[in-house]
């Protein structure tokens, strides 16, 4: 990959002159500066994209005759401003951490999986269905372990199927995973309306309720359930697997160039299936946590869009599992503030969806900025050195 584009606008290159001369004068600092520059590029461009997205969204809010300032104040108050709202944001971030991993892990292999919603629903359904007969005989921690494993299995099979279809049949994984999500939701509706239905759930078809004692509790000192901790741990594990293990290394190679990886003798098929199974497993686990910590049963409330917001989280985090943590909290806060915005400003609840969509489009648009800012590209730093005589 060569950086043949013309150097960027004057505005961006102004602060970099200092960095260049400093780096060239003190050779010892140069590697550090290069490392920092490379690391800073995604962060800077992502923040820029979020700013542009918020700016466009402000124009939209202005255009419909409301105050963007008031909206952002409410968004801050409702999502981050107080301990209460921050806990609300964290609770909503919990499933997002896991559904974002369902997108980010396959993305390392170059796959675009968008069916986390289906894996979440099936994971929740499998966990709830299994919990009903098992709950009386098992202590809560064992029950949670069993529910967690079955939910990961269900979600893993679902997304792993999309991965296997991609590798062995060449089926486009984006389309197949979304189709599988629709099928999963239909399957859940069928089962909670029929065989698995709790006769007591009249208006809202559900599976049998978990006994109160078997519900996953809150993290001590917080009004946030343990799902948040599970999500954070899953992100850290995923980061370690991708960055520090040979499997992760092989996956990154395969993601860079699938054919080259195959020629190198890497087990591409097993990598794809393994990563998609793990990805789906995480989304399934999110469903189990929604059932065991929030809903108490599997019902239509599982289809809450966590899978779709997770896609945005993963793209904003640039498919980096550690970056998913702050981004999920950010988007959790935005979703949490939806109700407040609706009540105070009389805006529809879809306002948050519009903001998410805007951010999503802008963040992808900003992909085109990579490599255009000289300050982030150490290879381009040398050029001014050569032309120093001219200046």
């Amino acid at each position: 990959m060569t950086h043949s584009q013309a150097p960027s606008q004057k505005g961006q290159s102004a602060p970099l002159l200092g960095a260049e001369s400093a780096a060239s004068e003190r050779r010892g600092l140069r590697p550090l500066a290069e490392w920092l520059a490379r690391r800073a590029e995604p962060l800077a461009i992502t923040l820029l994209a979020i700013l542009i997205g918020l700016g466009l969204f402000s124009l939209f809010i202005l255009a419909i005759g409301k105050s963007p300032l008031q909206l952002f104040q409410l968004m801050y108050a409702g999502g981050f401003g107080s301990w209460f709202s921050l806990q609300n944001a964290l609770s909503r971030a919990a499933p997002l951490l896991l559904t974002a991993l369902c997108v980010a892990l396959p993305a390392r292999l170059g796959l675009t999986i968008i069916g986390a919603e289906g894996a979440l629903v099936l994971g929740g359904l499998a966990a709830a269905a299994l919990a009903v007969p098992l709950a009386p005989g098992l202590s809560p921690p064992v029950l949670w372990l069993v529910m967690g494993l079955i939910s990961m299995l269900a979600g893993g099979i679902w997304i792993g199927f999309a991965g296997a279809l991609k590798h062995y049949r060449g089926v486009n994984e984006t389309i197949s995973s979304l189709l599988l999500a629709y099928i999963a939701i239909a399957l859940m509706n069928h089962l909670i309306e029929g065989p698995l239905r709790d006769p007591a759930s009249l208006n809202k078809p559900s599976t049998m309720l978990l006994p109160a004692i078997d519900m996953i509790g809150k993290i001590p000192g917080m009004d946030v359930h343990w799902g948040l901790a599970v999500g954070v741990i899953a992100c850290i594990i995923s980061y370690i697997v991708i960055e520090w293990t040979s499997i992760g290394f092989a996956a990154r190679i395969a993601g860079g160039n699938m054919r080259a990886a195959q020629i190198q003798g890497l087990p591409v098929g097993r990598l794809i299936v393994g990563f998609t199974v793990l990805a789906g497993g995480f989304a399934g686990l999110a469903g189990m946590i929604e059932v065991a910590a929030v809903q108490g049963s599997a019902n239509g409330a599982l289809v809450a869009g966590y899978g779709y917001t997770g896609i945005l989280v993963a793209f904003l985090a640039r498919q980096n599992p550690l970056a998913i943590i702050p981004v999920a909290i950010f988007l959790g806060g935005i979703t949490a503030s939806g109700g407040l915005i609706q009540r105070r400003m009389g805006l529809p609840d879809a306002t948050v969806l519009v903001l998410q969509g805007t951010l999503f489009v802008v963040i992808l648009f900003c992909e085109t900025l990579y490599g255009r800012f000289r300050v982030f590209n150490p290879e381009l730093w040398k050029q001014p050195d050569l032309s120093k005589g001219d200046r």
Partner: protein
Amino acid sequence: MDDSALGLWGVPLAILAGAIRVSTPFIFVSLGETLTERSGRINLGLEGTLVFGAMAAYAVAVMTGSPWAGVGAAMVAGSLFGFVHGFICKFPKVNDIAIGIAMMQFGLGLAFFFGKPFIQPVAPKLPVIPLGFWSHIAQVQAALTINILFVIGLALAVVLWWGLKNTRIGLILRVVGDSSDAARAMGISPDRVRLIATMAGGALAAVGGAYLSLFYPGAWNERISSGQGLMAVALVIFARWNPLGCVAASLLFGGAGALGPALQSVGVSEGYYLFYAAPYVLTLIILIITSSPTRALSGAPAALSLTK
């Protein structure tokens, strides 16, 4: 002769009627996506365009009293969505599939945002052609009551099929879809052609949405689409990027979608939600059958990232 005289014959009749009714949005979305993909780009965002089109058509029809004004508004909105997609995709390093996913969420968000006040009012419906006038059986009459958009869709498919092969515009589209370099050598700007093709695709997808809200099911709500916009993308692969194939595949999908309600109408209500999943399962099976891990799909535009 009363309704029950048809007995079980009502099932295939209901499936036929359903196929015609349900297939129309598929026809428009898949024809639109065919145009876009023939230019070498994939727009996965048509689901969002379809839902926004449904909302825009309904809202304008409520406000003006004219369903055709609604269809027109949907086309304008759809081409705007196509414009955004096509414009963004021309920049380097931008992934058209990912942009499609983003546009899907953006379109759905905007549609729900603006559509809230229009869930209650009733819009005028699109006119129909009663082809079943010769029969005195109510079910037959109902089955052969065909919407004008279905007829327009059929005509459009024939025009596109002919036009892609025999016109200069068709040739330009195919060249761009097969090789950007060849197009540039001919003095054609691939980005501009793709932008126009994506806009046309968006406009057609929005007409599919207008059909949903203005004819069948004929109301606007947030669950109006059941993934037609996405399934149509899969259907284009099955149809091998051939407009006539799109019509055949759409009818097949329409039939699958009508299976559940048809069985329910004769008293089979077991597993209603499973029949509801039939179109998705069928789409998936078709994708599995028609895809191949080793060879490029026959008839696929060479510049298409979907099949790489």
